[in-house]
């Protein structure tokens, strides 16, 4: 508030003799003016009180603040005596406009009327999002000329309805949903709106074309909204997990729920990828199968290893043909059946394959960025570290928890957290001694060295193990061992990698227990960091091995199918080890705790570790989509099974979390981790394969080409040959996509936008500090003014 509100100060005649403003020295005039003001306000307040009493008969005592002389307001006089005008002053203060919002219906309606009136009077219509997002009215924006504060409630409602009609329908319904009135009033407002809308007399003064347009626009938008509601109802009815999630959140709260919601998000991504691939690639290839060399019989082992009868199937890259399917000009194309079928459109399989993979990555990227945007919107707050205790009290209680035992645990958690916060704030005054700090730092350094050392050790171990397996397989190839031995060799590397990924996190937990970090949040971040580092470095090593063709597999000529099989095995092994970890980590541990150690405690659900497992599995899927187009389907099945198994194990074996967990903040962190190392890494790997790797000669849709990226170029050349008029079409890839200058320009723009946003954020932080200081100053001003009034009144009383 940079200017004071204007109020008329009625000063009696004798004070204006010299034309000066009344000053505190001119006691008589000032006192009488303030006295009069206070009296006027009191009478107004009395009238307002009566009006409010009529409206809200249930709170007759609400508008009179407690006349408690020992009330700890800052307005107490130094001696603590009760001032005769005290009660009136308090009453006036309690009825200030900034205090009555949310309470009095009249105030809410007036405020919303003013908002929409302001919207109408502006020439361009900004959306309601751009207005101040608080429900608190500001006196500056209070329209004093056409102030409906003294109108009756019904008048105010009709005024608001009239204003709402002038808004576009989308904003209108948003205002209707968000106005903090009771539902009956909202419904009556809506009825008034529809009545007014049906009477065209209201718009008689506006021009005819705009009236007709607005009417049609209204109808279309309303029709769309009804359709949207019907669609939403369908979607909600199709949600099979509503009650399962309610059960989980009722017993374990928002923190564990965030894992299952993350699982649901991943399921959505995979279903979209799978549908795209199914429609454009898999189904069509299934309709026109190529001639298969020698189909193997199906043994159960294929589900585990992915070789055998699965090798030449839709699952892998090698199956897909490199010709145009159903090409009427080609004579007997490979595998086409029934030439007597009516001519259908030819389908260029290589082009479709490449573009569908690119489209699925692009769609996933857009969805991920949209989820990240929403998460950040909800959870990122500028400068939020100062009000920890207050925030904890008002937002720590999870209203979703409904089970008695969980509620009891939640109370205990909050109690512990409050005690810890209090202790921490007192500890800040007495910091640790130098030797303690040194010891703490050395412990931290040692722990990190150990963690990094183990990561390096695991990577080296995986490298040497894969080399060993390579030699074993070559020996076996010469010796022609049994089928079981061959499968065993194939499964050994995925087994070792999954074993490391499962065991190392427990080791890191032990390390963290030894380390004893300062805050539980730091513990979680450190654990996530170490686990993520391990997983990503191992995946990096595996990617390098795949690209350099150091593979252990059966189809030697078709390296893409090999890589696809390897990834399939990794995905299946990951699933099996997740199950084993759930079984041993939760079920067995609970039995041991109960039976052997006779303790009441149960294992806890390690949210961070489980989410990182999900991210790892999803990275494997994204890495493998190019080589095994049905891998998203496998991942969908895996996630579905995982949901039910994890939920059952959670309900049977685990207890509510005992440590604080900021659910929305951590959800943002996880979705960022899903984007940044996981998705981007997979995208880089696939892009590299498409741009630089030479596809194999004998299999797959890109055989014979130099790189996969040449496919659209070949197609464009074909187009040019067939129709020279569209030669300009080849201009696009040459000058836009391959030209480095254009790409630099694009990245320059992106960097400039990021820098601009950072500066805007910095400026907003500064403004927040300034505004907080201003509010504190206004509070001091108010106290000063009231004390001045009281002291002047006292002097007047004593003088008189």
């Amino acid at each position, binding site marked *: 508030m940079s200017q004071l509100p204007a109020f008329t100060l009625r000063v009696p005649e004798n004070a204006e003799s010299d034309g000066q403003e009344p000053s505190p020295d001119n006691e008589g005039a000032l006192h009488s003016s303030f006295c009069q003001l206070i009296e006027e306000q009191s009478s107004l307040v009395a009238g307002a009180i009566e009006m409010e009493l009529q409206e809200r008969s*249930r*709170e007759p005592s609400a508008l009179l*603040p*407690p006349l408690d002389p020992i009330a*700890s*307001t*800052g307005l107490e006089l130094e001696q603590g005596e009760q001032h005769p005008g005290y009660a009136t002053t308090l009453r006036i203060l309690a009825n200030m406009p900034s*205090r009555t919002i*949310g309470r009095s219906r009249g105030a809410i309606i007036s405020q919303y009327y003013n908002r929409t009136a302001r919207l109408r009077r502006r020439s361009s219509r900004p959306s309601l999002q751009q207005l101040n*997002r*608080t*429900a608190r009215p500001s006196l500056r924006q209070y329209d004093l000329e056409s102030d409906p504060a003294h109108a009756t409630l019904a008048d105010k409602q009709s005024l608001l309805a009239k204003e709402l009609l002038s808004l576009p329908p989308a904003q209108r319904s948003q205002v*209707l*949903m*968000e106005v*903090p009135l009771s*539902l009956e009033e909202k*419904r009556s407002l*809506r*009825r008034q709106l529809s009545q007014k809308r049906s009477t065209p007399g209201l718009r008689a003064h506006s021009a005819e074309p705009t009236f007709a347009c607005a009417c049609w626009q209204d109808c279309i938008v309303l029709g769309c909204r*009804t359709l949207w*509601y019907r669609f*939403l*109802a369908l979607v*909600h*009815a199709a949600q099979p997990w509503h009650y399962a999630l*309610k059960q989980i*959140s009722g017993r374990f709260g*928002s923190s564990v729920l965030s894992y299952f919601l993350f699982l649901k998000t991943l399921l959505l991504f995979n279903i979209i990828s799978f549908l795209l691939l199914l429609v454009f690639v898999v189904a069509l290839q299934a309709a026109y199968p190529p001639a298969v060399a020698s189909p193997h019989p199906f043994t159960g082992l294929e589900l585990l290893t992915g070789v055998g009868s699965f090798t030449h199937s839709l699952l892998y890259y090698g199956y897909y043909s490199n010709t145009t399917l159903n090409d009427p000009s080609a004579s007997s194309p490979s595998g086409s059946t029934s030439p007597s079928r009516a001519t259908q459109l030819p389908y260029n399989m290589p082009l479709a394959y490449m573009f569908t993979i690119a489209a699925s990555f692009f769609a996933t990227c857009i969805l991920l960025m949209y989820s990240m945007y929403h998460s950040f919107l909800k959870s*990122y*707050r500028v400068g*939020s570290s100062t*009000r920890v*205790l*207050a*925030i904890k*009290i008002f*937002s*720590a*209680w999870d*209203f*979703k928890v*409904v089970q*008695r035992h969980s*509620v009891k645990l939640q*109370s205990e958690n*909050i*109690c512990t957290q*409050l005690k810890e916060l*209090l202790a921490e*704030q007192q500890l800040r005054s007495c910091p640790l001694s130098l030797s303690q700090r040194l010891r703490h730092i050395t412990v931290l350094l040692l722990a990190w060295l150990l963690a990094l050392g183990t990561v390096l050790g695991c990577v080296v171990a995986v490298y040497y193990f894969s080399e060993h397996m390579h030699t074993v397989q070559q020996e076996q190839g010469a010796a022609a061992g049994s089928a079981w031995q061959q499968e065993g060799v194939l499964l050994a590397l995925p087994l070792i990698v999954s074993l490391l990924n499962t065991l190392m996190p427990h080791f890191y937990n032990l390390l963290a227990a030894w380390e004893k970090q300062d805050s539980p949040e730091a513990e979680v971040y450190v654990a996530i960091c170490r686990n993520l580092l391990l997983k990503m470095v191992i995946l990096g090593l595996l990617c390098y091995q795949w690209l350099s063709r150091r593979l252990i597999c059966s189809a030697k000529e078709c390296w893409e199918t090999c890589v696809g099989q390897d990834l399939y095995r990794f995905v299946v092994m990951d699933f099996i080890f997740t199950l084993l970890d759930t079984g041993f980590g939760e079920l067995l541990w609970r039995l041991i705790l109960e039976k052997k150690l006779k303790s009441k405690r149960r294992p806890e659900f390690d949210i961070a570790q489980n989410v990182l497992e999900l991210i790892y599995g999803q990275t494997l899927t994204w890495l493998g989509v190019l080589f095994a187009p049905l891998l998203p389907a496998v991942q969908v099945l895996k996630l579905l099974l995982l949901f039910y198994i994890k939920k059952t194990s959670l309900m049977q074996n685990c207890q509510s979390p005992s440590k604080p967990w*900021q*659910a*929305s*903040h951590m959800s943002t962190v996880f979705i960022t981790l899903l984007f940044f190392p996981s998705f981007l890494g997979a995208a880089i790997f696939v892009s590299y394969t498409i741009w630089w790797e030479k596809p194999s000669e004998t299999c797959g849709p890109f055989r014979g080409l130099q790189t996969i990226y040449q496919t659209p170029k070949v197609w464009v050349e074909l187009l040019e040959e067939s129709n020279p008029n569209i030669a300009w079409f080849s201009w696009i890839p040459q000058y836009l996509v391959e030209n480095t200058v254009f790409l630099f320009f694009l990245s320059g723009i992106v960097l400039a936008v990021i820098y601009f946003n950072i500066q805007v954020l910095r400026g907003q932080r500064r403004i927040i500090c300034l505004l*907080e200081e201003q*509010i*504190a100053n206004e*509070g001091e001003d*108010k106290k000063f003014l009231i004390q001045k009034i009281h002291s002047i009144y006292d002097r007047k009383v004593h003088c008189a």
Partner: protein
Amino acid sequence: MGNKQTIFTDEQLDAYQDCTFFTRKEILRLHGRYHEMAPNVVPMDYTKDPDVKLPMQLIINMPELKENPFRERIVESFSEDGEGSLSFNDFVDMFSVLSEMAPRELKAIYAFKIYDFNTDNFICKADLEKTLNKLTREELTAEEITLVCEKVIEEADMDGDGKLGFADFENMISKAPDFLSTFHIRI
């Protein structure tokens, strides 16, 4: 959606959809829940908007509210007649504000009403003490409670009157990223 229901007219269901954050199916489900709390009192036919209110005792025994320490205050904040009895409109309103889609500002208004135990438009020290006692089931000692209340008022009170007005409360809630996910009841 094709199946004929006789509980509400289409116009009523559209009004509910426009004024709350629920879809038709959810409104019907809510009516089912409201009805099963008192099958003899709540009619199945709501086409004439009958004036039926359920007392607070029935509502706070719902499984979603039974163990919540603030259940009485929640029901009182949404009740129109001041005694805590909810009509069906109030019932839907309550779960609409507590649903996932309600915006932060709306939730902040009602959260302020809930934590304001003596309904004086301020969250004063007494209100804070009651809130703390309900949160921790009176596990904190008296001096810890006083200390916490003082610190909270120190942190959140911006204009120096020793209590939290709605402006202070809303400013603090806007800095709390978890508020939206914790102030949420699934029905």
